[in-house]
């Protein structure tokens, strides 16, 4: 009996801490569910371009709008991160992909992130139940790892700060 009570308490604790710790934000209210782009090859004037340069594709993805459900965190101090998942459909290896973005939303930062990593995009008080973020992405891809069209699903995580 004590064992099951312990398990129950632990699960409740996990739920509780997850709510106030790192949480993935729901962006289901975002207007564009699927954005498709055609990349171009990196241009280089150097006669002797390296194989890395020759294999680099660049995809520009302007005006990607996220509407993040931040109702749970309203009026709380938080840090919001952009996460690029390690796993990308169509990619044979994790290396060779980098996402840069330019933020069009004042409170949000511009930056870059590699696959499997996250980058801070917001620090401050959450002021709305729905937080709108617009990014212009530039995605750099090593075409050698590209097996077919790639599907990225960047998402946001939030940490509540004291």
């Amino acid at each position, binding site marked *: 009996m004590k064992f099951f009570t312990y398990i*129950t308490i632990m699960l409740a604790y996990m739920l509780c801490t997850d709510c106030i710790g790192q949480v993935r934000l*729901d962006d289901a209210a975002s207007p564009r569910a699927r954005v498709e782009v055609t*990349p*171009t*090859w990196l241009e280089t004037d150097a006669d*002797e371009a390296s194989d890395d340069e020759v294999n680099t*594709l660049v995809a520009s993805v302007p005006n990607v709008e996220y509407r993040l459900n931040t109702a749970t965190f309203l009026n709380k101090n938080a840090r919001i991160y952009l996460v690029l998942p390690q796993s990308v459909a169509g990619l044979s290896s994790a290396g060779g992909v980098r996402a840069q973005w330019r933020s069009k939303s004042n409170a949000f930062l511009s930056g870059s992130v590699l696959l499997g990593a996250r980058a801070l995009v917001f620090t401050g008080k959450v002021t709305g139940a729905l937080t709108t973020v617009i990014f212009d992405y530039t995605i750099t891809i090593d075409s050698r790892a590209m097996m077919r*069209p790639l599907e990225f699903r960047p998402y946001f995580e939030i940490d509540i700060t004291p």
Partner: protein
Amino acid sequence: MSTCNVSIQCKLRASVLLTAALFCSVADMRHATAVTVVVANGTPQIRLRVGAAGAGISLVTFTLTATNAGNGVAINGAPNITIIAEARGPVANARNATLTVNSTAAMISGADSIPMSVITWTTNDATFPVGTFSGGAGQVLTTFQNSRRRTTAHTFRYANTQIFPAGTYNGQVTYTLSMP
């Protein structure tokens, strides 16, 4: 008593399972995401530059005199010719690019001609072997896999083993890069 204890445990298990199911449900809701960015394959691309950058046809000149014509000492042409061949496509090493040259047209001076097969070349890049114009079409100079750029400078030489009628001989060779 024993039966009662088992019954209580079963209820607790049910409680734990319910809690776990609730946790999973909440976790799934939190992971809802809507925005997917799809990046299409890059369009395959080949580029070839032979000679000087920009438009125009580069000219290689061999100068012979009456005293050295046909003496068997090869004459270097000038200038050297830069060749840059580039083939790009998604998925490494999935396609072959081939650089060929067509040297069927001889060098002409009025009614006289010199076959292109008297011209050889050396190279400063091992991926472009040294060679001699075959005088035919589709002579393969190099083959390489995507995505790569090959750069070399060819130094051309006139063999100078025969005496031809005096004159200025002009000819043209055509390079072709393909990646089926």
